């Protein structure tokens, strides 16, 4: 796994995990890999993984059971909300780039329709 080292690695890892949840790689109620497992897999310091987990924990998407591990919440509404939020963030980035190219909303819609046709 290659990280963009210019931004905090824990944020990139929490993002990676959230993508995994939205994609259904980790399902509601699933036990997440342990800090140690993820640290070995990603070759990243375990404290950084712990920080990523705590961050998503704070957002209410993961929760930790003492001595049991970290789990994905069962509440589907929360996961649906996460999906919408992540989509919005991606679209916002896209719109910023379109703005910098001076492309209007109407034009963007046209381009999307055209590309989605095939």
């Amino acid at each position: 796994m290659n990280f963009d080292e210019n931004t905090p690695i824990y944020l990139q890892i929490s993002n990676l995990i959230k993508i995994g949840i939205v994609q259904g790689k980790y399902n509601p109620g699933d036990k997440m890999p342990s800090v140690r497992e993820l640290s070995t897999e990603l070759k990243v310091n375990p404290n950084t993984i712990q920080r990523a987990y705590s961050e998503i924990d704070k957002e209410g998407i993961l929760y930790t059971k003492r001595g049991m591990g970290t789990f994905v919440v069962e509440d589907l509404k929360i996961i649906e909300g996460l999906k919408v939020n992540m989509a919005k963030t991606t679209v916002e980035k896209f719109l910023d780039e379109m703005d910098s190219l001076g492309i209007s909303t109407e034009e963007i819609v046209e381009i999307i329709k055209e590309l989605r046709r095939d």
Partner: protein
Amino acid sequence: MANIVEVKKAYKFYGGTTALDFIDLDIKKGNIVGLLGPNGSGKTTLLKVIANVIHPESGEIFVDGKKVGIETRKIVSYLPDNDFLLKWMTLNNAIKFYEDFFEDFSKEKMMDLLNFMELDGKLAIKVKDLSKGMREKFNLSLILARDAEVYLLDEPIGGVDIITRDNILESIINTFVEGKTIIITTHLVSELEKILDEAVFIKDGKIILQGNCDDLRMEYGTNIEGVYRQVYRGV
């Protein structure tokens, strides 16, 4: 969180110059810390005074709340930046030596490390007959096989090929146990980015910046190597 290492106003004149200039440093328990700086900035000297192999002219150093000495040596595992094993020793001899010398040395952990480093078939070979990369891996394995509180690693990835380097970094992460502390010196900053919690920048025997790596990335908007450039070149 408690400080596992505290350096207070340490002054050391070494090799004809001021190596440590009344340096102050606190290291929190449970982190992998990078001690970063150009050649001659005082990194090696600082590790040596923490390891208690040399003594500062003034100032005090504490490890786990105790003044450095025989007691703290038992909980500090130190990898010097030069070869420290006797040339005639076979790997087996060296392992036996460490086993006898350090109570916290685990033969089992050593064998796991050697297996991972692909050195487990070379135990009858003499230390002097190992390649440089193999020797570095072997030396590091001896240091990591101890169950110490603090590991001091002086340039563990200096002068080895990239495969060996990855091997070494992985073994450091894999043996890192919660609550233990590792301090690594290097001038190869980018290679260590992913494994460091904290970065300490040293210049002319003084600490000029210290912080959590992810917080520094956020604050400076660049990687630790970028912070390093800004700190030492002012760009």
